[in-house]
């Protein structure tokens, strides 16, 4: 391949290689997305089941502590994937930054909502209403992060994923206001995680396999 070539061929090589690099999707690049999709869907469904089964409903929320070891396992999975990746693009860096910002925002949001619930200055009682905002707020933030990711990697199913999460957040509100049932939001969350993370994730991995 190392022959001298014309200026036109030179331009064609530059264009072809930049295009290849731009359209590159690595095998297993959506594994983290699929993992978190299943993990959150599983914990949300467990929360729903425990809400029906337990007498002390508040105990059911403790199931979310499972996300700590699951997130640690997810971190190691991601690190292993990063190490074995044969190419790192600038887009990968942007996407990683989006999800890091998302994680920090989620922690800040949970701290704020729990603080408001326990130390509401306007009442002497605990204001549990704030805690019912966690799921829709998390879904709105997830939608925003996925929307950014869709733009960065120009992958249309992620736009649909973001729309699922925004719709899910509104359905959470409806279930709370119309049905007056707070537990339904965990089913909505589980469905959105599968539709918004797992399905586009598998679709991206399939595309990556076809690229190889």
């Amino acid at each position, binding site marked *: 391949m190392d022959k001298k*070539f014309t200026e036109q061929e030179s*331009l064609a090589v530059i264009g072809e290689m930049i295009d290849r690099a731009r359209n590159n999707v690595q095998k297993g690049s959506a594994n983290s997305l699929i993992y978190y999709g299943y993990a959150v869907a599983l914990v949300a469904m467990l929360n729903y089941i425990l809400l029906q089964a337990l007498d002390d409903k508040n105990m059911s929320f403790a199931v979310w502590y499972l996300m700590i070891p699951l997130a640690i396992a997810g971190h190691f999975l991601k690190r292993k994937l990063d190490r074995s990746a044969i190419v790192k693009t600038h887009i990968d860096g942007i996407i990683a930054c989006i999800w890091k910002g998302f994680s920090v925002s989620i922690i800040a949001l949970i701290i704020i909502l729990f603080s408001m619930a326990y130390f509401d200055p306007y009442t002497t009682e605990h204001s549990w209403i704030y805690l019912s905002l966690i799921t829709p707020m998390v879904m709105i933030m997830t939608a925003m992060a996925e929307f950014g990711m869709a733009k960065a990697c120009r992958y249309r199913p992620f736009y649909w994923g973001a729309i699922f999460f925004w719709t899910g957040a509104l359905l959470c509100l409806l279930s709370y206001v119309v049905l007056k049932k707070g537990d339904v939001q965990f089913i909505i969350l589980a469905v959105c995680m599968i539709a918004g993370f797992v399905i586009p994730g598998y679709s991206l991995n399939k595309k990556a396999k076809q690229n190889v």
Partner: protein
Amino acid sequence: MFKDLDPLLHSQLRLAVMSLLISVKEADFVYLKEQTGATSGNLSVQIDKLNTAGYIDIQKTFQGKMPRTVCKITDKGIDAFDGYVKNLKPYIKRNPV
């Protein structure tokens, strides 16, 4: 008006490698081989030339027991690539594709 093209870059495989590396943060030897369709021997010789010229950085590591070569474009390489593309333009204008 017509400036000489950098002879180091005006070679199909080296230019292909540089075009790939300018589009990504870093790339493994395996990725460069897959994308350019070059043989390991030829690719190895060409990336060594680019490395000697200071256009790319090469990091040789081990992943488990397997040796791994990761390439990254340097600032000098980016400048050289920019210069090459600028110098190429008059030639293309004279003989459009």
